[in-house]
């Protein structure tokens, strides 16, 4: 399956400006207009767009396509333009000094022999089998983002998988899925990582790959499939656990939790259309204490950072807005299914918030579910 590059002239944009109205970046900075940039691209000025900073400021949250009456793939064009810009040695502003990208390039080297399973000590996993648990970068995040533990998500997922009677394969040879590289225009590294990961998973004989990260899920499912045909099926843990809970394979005791609300990550929601499974699972765990925010499902606000590359003061406004929205529901825990959303909100709460957001935690759905698991 080969990928066809998106060309601006193929875009069915009708210049209705709906994309700009829903764009979170535009909400904070009115000068950022996807419609304007699309017009520029349609007029054949794509090269100028590539050279400018706008193309790096898009959060790729896909709210624009949700609103677009003609399904114009602006985000797809952004990805294309970033790829072209990278080839011409133009670069986005460095966030964390390219740390994430450096780690991905290191992992793309086949000579690397990782020791990434330290977190799984004492837990049940296999070397070969039908199920593969794709941990993603969680073991690295523990040393990169110092607020809270990130492998706790991996532990919770493994615990739930075991409780459902599955002993998944974990591999030291697994690498980062390459999501950040892909969306920052470095398709070369992405292809290397995709090749290595597909080989690693295929070698274990796994037919089903579980991820606990919305971005890994979308990358494996959609972007790896563009690289080559996949010998396995990809499933996000939340879909699986919701299904298992329905079948009675997982049983949760309803705990008197403080209010819980759910934040839709872009990759699981708008990109993959999974809105109901997380809500079903959360209601199973938290019961009536689950409350909805105002902007949900396709309308959910972005966490404000795309692929670790565009964090700025606008981001902080968006995060503040979203966290206050969560707090207004009366919830004390905002649950998400994407570890990166959790990192970005966690960074905001841990750093210097615009004003303090009291009594609000951001947690992953697997952690909540694992705690409520009936023994």
């Amino acid at each position, binding site marked *: 399956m080969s990928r066809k590059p998106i060309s601006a002239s193929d875009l069915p944009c009708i210049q209705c400006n709906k994309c700009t109205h829903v764009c979170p970046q535009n909400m904070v900075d009115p000068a950022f207009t996807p419609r304007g940039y699309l017009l520029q691209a349609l007029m054949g000025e794509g090269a100028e767009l590539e050279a400018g900073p706008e193309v790096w400021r898009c959060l790729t949250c896909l709210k624009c396509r949700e609103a677009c009456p003609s399904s114009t793939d602006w985000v797809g064009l952004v990805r294309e333009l970033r790829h072209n810009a990278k080839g011409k040695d133009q670069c986005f502003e460095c966030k964390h*000094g390219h740390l994430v990208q450096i780690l991905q390039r290191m992992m793309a080297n086949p000579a690397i022999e990782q020791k990434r399973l330290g977190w799984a000590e004492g837990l049940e996993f296999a070397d070969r089998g039908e199920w593969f648990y794709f941990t993603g970068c969680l073991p690295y995040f523990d040393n990169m983002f110092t607020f809270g533990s990130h492998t706790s998500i991996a532990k919770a997922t493994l615990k739930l998988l075991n409780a459902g009677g599955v002993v998944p394969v974990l591999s030291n040879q697994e690498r980062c899925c390459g999501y950040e590289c892909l969306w920052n225009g470095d398709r070369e590294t992405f292809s290397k990582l995709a090749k290595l990961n597909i080989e690693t998973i295929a070698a274990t004989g796994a037919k089903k790959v579980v991820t606990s990260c919305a971005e890994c899920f979308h990358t494996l499912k959609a972007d790896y499939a563009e690289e080559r045909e996949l010998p396995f099926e990809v499933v996000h843990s939340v879909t699986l656990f919701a299904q298992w809970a329905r079948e009675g394979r997982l049983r949760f005791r309803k705990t008197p939790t403080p209010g819980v609300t759910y934040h839709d990550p872009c990759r699981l929601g708008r990109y993959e259309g999974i809105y109901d499974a997380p809500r079903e699972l959360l209601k199973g765990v938290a019961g009536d204490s689950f409350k909805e925010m105002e902007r949900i499902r396709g309308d959910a606000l972005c966490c404000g950072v795309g692929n670790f590359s565009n964090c700025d003061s606008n981001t902080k406004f968006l995060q503040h807005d979203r966290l206050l929205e969560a707090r207004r529901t009366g919830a004390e825990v905002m649950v998400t299914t994407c570890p990166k959303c959790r990192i970005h909100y966690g960074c905001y709460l841990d750093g210097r918030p615009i004003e303090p957001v009291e009594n609000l935690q951001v947690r992953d759905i697997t952690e909540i579910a694992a705690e409520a698991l009936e023994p």
Partner: protein
Amino acid sequence: MNHEPDILGFACNWCGYAGADGAGQAKLQYPTSIRIIRVMCLGRVDPSFVLSAFERGYDGVALIGCHIGDCHYLSGNVNAQTVVEHLRGILDTMGLGRERLRMEEVSSREGPRFAELVRTFKDQLVAMGPSPLKKGKVELAEEGDRP
């Protein structure tokens, strides 16, 4: 396996770099494996600098700064200690080994200590073998090279 390791040193202007200078002035012998980048303070060393060095194939990275408590900017070397601890965790997960990153305290008058540090670090890296990311002798980056 015998190999000539490449070491990248980040030396602070006030202690580490002056110490290295002292070793040179006293004509002390130490291996040429180390390349030194002078920084005003170890607090300037971003985690990405260190990982970028490993990505380019360096076998070891040393952060050479003031003794704790002597930092010219009060707490730069204490911050660097935290960074080093986290970077070591990343190096372990990556399978390179935490021992490839060292942080040493060398004051401006401790030239012999600097020479000794380079010697022992080199021996240690020879014993550990080349970094899996190594593609031969590390070339110096050209001006305008992007990470």
